[in-house]
């Protein structure tokens, strides 16, 4: 488990350094994800079982990791007072509209492309 965590942290570190050194418009962890994916694909086959188990363990509780930030948001709702109604509507209606449109368009394009339906 420690080896897996070390690899994850090393990829994140490399991502953070690369993002800053090259002024890339992506956060370090997302670059780290790309680096790790490229590495695993280059290696070929499925990710090593022990490493995959650690990664899956972390991902099963991905939501937990957003909880501290979400608590902060609820306590900073006063920031929204600046324009509560437009912000609330943009968040709720805007996000749902984006999900609906993207989901529908993606499903339609995948069907049109004739790929295997994973439903």
């Amino acid at each position, binding site marked *: 488990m420690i080896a897996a965590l070390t690899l*994850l*942290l090393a*990829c*994140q570190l490399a991502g953070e350094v690369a993002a800053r050194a090259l002024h890339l*418009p*992506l*956060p370090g962890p*997302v670059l780290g*994800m*790309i680096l*790790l*994916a490229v590495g*695993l694909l280059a290696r070929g086959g*499925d990710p090593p079982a022990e*490493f*995959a188990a650690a*990664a*899956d363990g*972390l*991902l*099963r509780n*991905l*939501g*937990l*990791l*957003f*909880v501290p*930030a*979400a*608590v*902060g*948001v609820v306590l900073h709702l006063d*920031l*929204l007072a600046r*324009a509560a*109604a*437009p*912000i609330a*509507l*943009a*968040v*709720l*209606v*805007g*996000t*749902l509209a*984006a*999900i*609906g*449109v*993207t*989901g529908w*368009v*993606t*499903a339609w394009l*995948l069907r*049109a492309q004739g*790929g*295997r339906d*994973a439903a």
Partner: protein
Amino acid sequence: MRPELAEIWVYLAASPLAALTVTLAAWLAGLRLHAAARGSALVNPVLVAALLLVALLFVSGIEYRAYFEGAQFVHFLLGPATVALAVPLVRQWRLLRASGPALAVALVCGSVFASVSAVAIGWAFGADRAVLASLAPKATTTPVAMGIAEQIGGIPSLTAVVVILSGIAGAALGPILLALLQVRDWRARGFAVGLAAHGIGTARAISVNETAGAFAALAMGLNALATALLLPLVWALAMP
């Protein structure tokens, strides 16, 4: 309060141990409630846990800053967990690659629509320019969204709040909407939720189906890139 109780209270309020324990306990309560609701997206465990903790902080009078001293250890794991999304991506690689052309088009449509809809709704209901600029990048993951907001004249701290709220709204209501629209393909469902509700949407997707999770992780990463590249350009042209 008796003196020894007061002493214990001072210790608990200052130590990361208590904050960590209640955060994990609130998350477990969120998972239990989610399971009790038969996995309904509406009873989102992130939302439940956050509400429980807000109530606790409110009742106990502990400041968020003090709470975060402990909770930051959980928060820190967001970085390595984001890196770990590479594992489902690699496992689903064949499916992802086969869907490539469709996803590229869907990405551009979704990314543009997410920003334009947020700005259009904000504008229609009278938000000022700084608020509109804060809303525009709200579909992307927090650090990217804050960077873009700053670049186009928004308020980064407002963007941080809006991003998290959008993530929760998307994770809690998005799956219900997709079911109503009869979008049943896990690839499309994951892609949509990851694009519009970033990590919180991806967390929901990955807990339901690995294919949906991989497509959500990919959409989250790609939309961060697409929005960071496109939005400042479009903003400069459309909102001079």
